[in-house]
């Protein structure tokens, strides 16, 4: 994937681009995404993939003007527009799924294909979503991965907690990335989306890991209920980081959109 930058109304936006096929915009989750992400590579085998970073993610510029759900939704539409795309396949993981669904609800005639990979954005009182903002790094793999051991190995690669410089860098990155994510996810990741989902007209695929411990599969059913035409693809032995744990399954489900 190539790393590029495009100017939008508010801020220059960093994005990764690569592959051949139908244009597909992928919106990352709260953990971010890199140019080396295997899921992007997989999608790029069949699609022209555009993966913009939310401001503050990776090395991209922060944007104080983006404060709430509407700001971020419209900003992401600005990104699509700046990329010169019209009705691309819109896909998102977790927080990215929440943004993609908002975009489809706000502009239902501009999104005909929507891929939602265990999206955030709904809240069920009987299934409170664990507070990722109050977790220490070592606690995350248990809620993010089906295979916790493999997930831990993945998350701790390159980690040097005893190096003050590394730690400072880590804290800065957290503040930039999760600080931004917190604007729509903190303290409860519900910004009223459930009341707007009726507007979504897109052909929609919902993809969920059976072993998702962050946003448990009960949410998949709530989403399916909210978007009448949605098709649910359940993936066994996958947690919330399903794009890493079951890369091929997710790519195959997305391919249903064309």
């Amino acid at each position, binding site marked *: 994937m190539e790393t590029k930058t495009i100017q939008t109304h508010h801020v220059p936006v960093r994005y990764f681009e690569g592959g051949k096929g139908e244009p597909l915009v992928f919106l990352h989750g709260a953990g971010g995404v890199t140019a080396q992400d295997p899921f992007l590579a997989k999608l790029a085998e069949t699609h022209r993939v555009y993966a913009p970073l939310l401001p503050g993610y990776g090395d991209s510029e922060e944007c*104080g003007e983006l404060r709430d759900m509407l700001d971020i939704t419209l900003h992401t539409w600005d990104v699509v527009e700046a990329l010169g795309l019209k009705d691309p396949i819109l896909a998102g993981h977790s927080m990215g799924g929440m943004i993609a669904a908002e975009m489809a609800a706000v502009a239902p005639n501009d999104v005909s294909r929507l891929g939602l990979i265990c999206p955030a954005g709904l809240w069920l009182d009987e299934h409170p979503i664990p507070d990722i*903002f*109050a977790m*220490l790094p070592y606690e995350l793999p248990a809620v993010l991965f089906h295979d916790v051991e493999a997930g831990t190995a993945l998350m701790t690669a390159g980690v040097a907690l005893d190096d003050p410089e590394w730690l*400072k860098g880590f804290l800065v990155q957290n503040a930039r990335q*999760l*600080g931004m994510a*917190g604007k729509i996810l*903190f*303290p409860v990741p519900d910004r009223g989306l459930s009341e707007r989902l009726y507007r979504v007209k897109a052909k929609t695929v919902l993809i969920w890991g059976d072993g998702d411990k962050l946003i448990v599969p009960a949410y998949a059913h709530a989403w399916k209920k909210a978007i009448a035409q949605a098709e649910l693809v359940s993936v066994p032995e996958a947690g919330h980081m399903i794009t890493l744990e079951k890369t091929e399954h997710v790519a195959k489900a997305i391919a249903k959109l064309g």
Partner: protein
Amino acid sequence: MKFTWFNLMPWPYLPDDFREKHRSVWVDIDSRLFDPAKAHEVYNSYMDMLEYAGTLGFDGIGVNEHHQNGYGIMPSPNIIAAGLARRTSDVGLVVLGNSIALYNPPVRVAEEFAMLDCISGGRLVAGFPVGTSMDTNYCYGQIPALTREKYQEAHDLIRRAWSDPDPFAFNGRYNKLRHVNIWPRPIQDPPPIHIPGGGSVETYDFCIDNTYSYSYLSFSGYIRAKALMQGYWDRVAARNTPDESPYRAGFAQTICVADTDEEAERLYSEHVSYFYNRCLHVYGGFADAPGYRTIKTIQTGALSQYAPPIGGYSELTWKDLTEQGHVIAGSPETVRQRMEDLIKSLNVGNIFCLLHVGNMPMDKCMHSTKLFAEKVMPHLRNMFPDYKDDNRFWCKPLDKQVKPGSLPAEKEIAAMVGGKD
């Protein structure tokens, strides 16, 4: 010097195995550890203690705001301050402070502080903390990355609500108010304002720009605080601030006084241990919501520099805690010397004296407090003769204060009614 007797109001009944059985004293502390009937006694004895301190010559008695917190059972310091206003006279009421971003709308703070100032006859010293991440983000749900902007707006609104004589419209991002016109208004114009900070340059500047006093409310003592306070004074100098008055700064210090150093350890070490082991047992995940600190603050390395000691407080013995200055303890002479060192090295004119520690019973607390007031404080009074007339950062009470109990005797009413006949 201005000395404030400051009470955090810790819950004194945390069990011995609190650290082992519970992950945090704050945010998700087990509510079953709280006993409302015992709290009746705890609140009243703490208020008695604050009132007692008010009779011993302290300049102020101080309270603060925490939420869902086992070492600070004071979600509303204004309620406590209102009680104190009635039962004290002369002494400053230091409310340090109200976390102004948490009040909806923040004119509530302008109103309540105005009430306190009026009830107390102009004795309010006001504090406007941003609030800790535990209180502000995790307990009260404020979005971390927007907290400071919301705080700033709340500040601007409160200041204008106090000073603008006419009703005004306030079109803020977080507050839309068509008719701001608070009633009552404070006696002081405005009350002196102290800002608790944790080492961010933005807060240094905010204090310098507004002539607010910068307070560092730490539990790790004056020796570890030097870097932070020096950062503040460097900034004061760099900004060409007209003066370097020590009253531009304040510091909180845990203090225990006894007749001798040995006696201090014997009397107080278990309570100090209770505080540093149980009360400061905060789950790391609640320490700092991402986005709460500015990038600039993290990049200065402030967090590691001012963080609790490696391994936490629980490893520290009485000897460690006193030698490293977390706690200043000992005979009046020992405490005087160390306080002098503190005051000089940090250049602070406001001291928030944490003389009640952890689960210290009231008799010991009175003993320590009285010794400090009588045998330590008088020797520290004149540390900054050049600035003895600097009253910008302290309350200015009315000359004539009314006392509670001003109603006429019932027989006078009978006479008045009779007189009409």
